[in-house]
């Protein structure tokens, strides 16, 4: 079927509640927020600040893309930030010092490590039939601990310039993110793998009976999530010029929050890369605007919490409305 036949029901736009049910709610809210805050927020609409927003947004979006894939399959990956930290220090260790490997080898090692750790998560979840929440929680603790042990809690400096360019030249990270987002989007919409992923999240039993290789596909989703985390780690490590064992530690809830705010369901089977982009955009702009309004960290955190709750309530009400109207 064509891309027009979407996995999610598009409600009639003539419905008076159409805007409320629309999948572009996230984007609309972002624009509204931006327009509403711009007059009161000095510096929000300046090109410098927009670049700043973009720099912060890209790694977040990359990790959130991986999280979206996992959530569509009905799982969750709490280990992403630990994978970021571990790949950061492993990559930095490899590329620095006298026997430093070339940048390309270092980056590929980081990506392979991330994908491998993700696949390990997935294999444990599907083969031992354990809840994703607890498995990735345990691997979050373990990998983070491993990263800290590996470096004895010290950051690693002296990364090669060719590597630093990856994070500091915006066009490069922008291109990487756009390519990844497009690839993920097309994969979900236009490939067998993507369709299978939705089917598993919607009804794993029906998918199994229909011949979908449920275990392999779920495992692949976790591997993809690990890969995305590693790619984000490349950008973050390069931008901060350090391999840090606590890299990305504070963004886990932002990632889950952004994905859920975008509309991807925690219960699987529903989600889009575009939605996740809107969610990340919304959270980043909000964060940035509140920062510029020189509201302190606490207001930002509170607002984020309120926004996540709001999105969840909206989703609960929305799904009940859709069910009732059908």
């Amino acid at each position, binding site marked *: 079927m064509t891309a027009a*036949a979407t996995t999610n*029901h598009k409600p009639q736009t003539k419905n008076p509640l159409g805007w409320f049910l629309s999948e572009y709610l996230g984007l609309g809210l972002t624009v509204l927020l931006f327009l509403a805050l711009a007059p009161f927020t000095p510096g929000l609409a300046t090109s410098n600040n927009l670049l700043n927003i973009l720099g912060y947004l890209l790694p977040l979006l990359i990790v959130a893309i991986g999280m979206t894939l996992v959530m569509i399959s009905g799982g969750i990956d709490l280990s992403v930030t630990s994978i970021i930290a571990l790949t950061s220090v492993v990559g930095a260790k490899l590329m620095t010092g006298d026997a430093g490997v070339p940048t390309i080898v270092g980056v590929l090692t980081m990506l392979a490590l991330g994908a491998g750790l993700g696949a390990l998560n997935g294999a444990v979840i599907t083969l031992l039939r354990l809840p994703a929440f607890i498995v990735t929680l345990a691997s979050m603790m373990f990998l983070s601990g491993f990263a800290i042990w590996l470096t004895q809690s010290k950051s690693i400096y002296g990364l090669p310039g060719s590597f630093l360019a990856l994070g500091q030249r915006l066009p490069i990270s922008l291109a990487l993110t756009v390519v990844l987002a497009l690839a993920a989007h097309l994969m979900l919409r*236009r490939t067998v793998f993507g369709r299978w992923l939705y089917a598993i999240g919607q009804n794993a039993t029906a998918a199994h009976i229909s011949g979908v290789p449920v275990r392999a596909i779920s495992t692949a989703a976790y591997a993809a999530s690990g890969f995305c985390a590693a790619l984000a780690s490349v950008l973050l490590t390069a931008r901060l010029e350090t391999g840090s064992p606590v890299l990305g530690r504070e963004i886990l809830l932002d990632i889950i929050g952004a994905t859920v705010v975008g509309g991807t369901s925690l219960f699987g089977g529903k989600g889009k890369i575009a939605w996740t982009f809107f969610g990340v955009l919304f959270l980043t702009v909000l964060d940035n605007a509140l920062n510029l309004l020189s509201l302190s960290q606490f207001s930002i955190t509170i607002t984020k919490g309120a926004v996540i709750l709001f999105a969840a309530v909206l989703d609960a009400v929305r799904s009940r409305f859709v069910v009732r109207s059908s």
Partner: protein
Amino acid sequence: MQPATNNQLQTTNNELLSFRGIEKAFFGVKVLKGVSFTVPAGGMVGLVGENGAGKSTLMNILGGDLQPDAGTITLEGSGYAPLNPQDATRRGIAFIHQELNLFPNLSIAENIFLTRFPRAGVTPFIQRGGMNRRAVDLLREVGLEIPPDRLVETLSAGERQLVEIAKALSIDARLILFDEPTTSLSERETDRLFALISRMRARGITMIYISHTLADVFRLCDDIVVLRDGEVVGSGATKTFTTEKLVSMMVGRTVSQLFPERRSLGKRGDEAEAGFATGAPLLEVNGVSQPGVLRDISFTLRRGEVLGLSGLMGAGRSELARILFGLDPRTAGEVRLNGEQLPRLSPRELIERGVAFLTENRRSEGLCLDASVGDNFTLVTLPQHGRTPLRWLAGASLKSAVERIRAVVKLDAKTSDSQPVRTLSGGNQQKVVLGKWLLRQPRVLMLDEPTRGIDVGARFEIYQLIHQLADQGAGVLVISSDMEELMGLCDRILVMCGGTLVDDLPRAQFDRERILRAALGTNQEAAP
């Protein structure tokens, strides 16, 4: 037959419960068409009927799980219109279901007193001593000598049932309803249950007993009410019935008009006998067993054959299909497809070899309810449309596949491809599941209750599709509780009872009563 004139039981002055003109429809299909009968106080009434006759619906109405569209229920002379299960409990009605409603992670006594725990004085604590003592008394009444603090999960099926009865006694139930209580019981447990039932009768408790085991109904009940297609077709004192009479009443003759396709089928039936009986064996099943589920099942499905699998609920029909499709394990037996022995049964490998399986649980196992019609149609055949190394989906071929199959299954034209399947009617949903498998062009198609909850028009179309497929040389295995359907549709019918195959009838020998007797296990010649 007018129920109103025919269904008065002999006692009317001391009636405990009476149904008057109860009607209920689901999705426009009438399941109960004005059911009326009375249950005398202290009596024991047997309620019999084929699967789908409306027994469960009637009992769900009595239990407050469903509300009738029309009609009234009178309990002890006053109106009774329960809105939820608690209303039924409050009025002293208790249910002993086939699948038990006990919490396995709680103790026996806790299950009995879950919403009415005795408290120790004014403290918030459960008076465990008192509760357990009362539980012991109740358990003794039902003949269970087990400490009341044992967890329910450690009990056997029979013991759990006795706990349910003890729970019923604890609310001083005046009316207890048994729904197929002996299905999962051993012979000894059944005897124990029957002894208990007579003790409860002696105490004046009124009971309704639903069962397919007619011998038990004859043994236990004073009166019998026969339901067929949502109507009471006969009622009276047990002694006025014989097994023969009961079976022919349950089966009935009137429904055959609902199967207009029989005319065309007659011709095809002859053809099948001539041509396909000698057709090549397609699926050969040899000695498939799984302890407690199936015992030594062997049969052959031939090319072009529509093979029916009849039997009562719990006979092992769906279990057999699930094992053949690799969804459940088996301990013994081999399966050959086109003469080639299958080493391992798994859905993926079977689908690759052209086997398809439409399960009985359309919503939980057949469909992704929130996904679109198009996505559901193409779920099985998706890899065929993505053959490039990146498994890129060919949009045009997908679209044309959806269009093609829509036409084949005659999906309602108003339905759009992007509509979530959840929003479709049951009949259209079933067409989607069927279409999903037909797109695979299966050589063996197993259908479990393909027309359950579907209106007549859609049924007709599904039958036609089954015929078309068989005419093209596929083998079709149809599991159905609707005997008329099997007899109208199939070239041959296998009958299962208690996990074994008990009868095998070619089309020329189709006989409702013989099939029903075999399924009930009363067919002595055919039973092992």
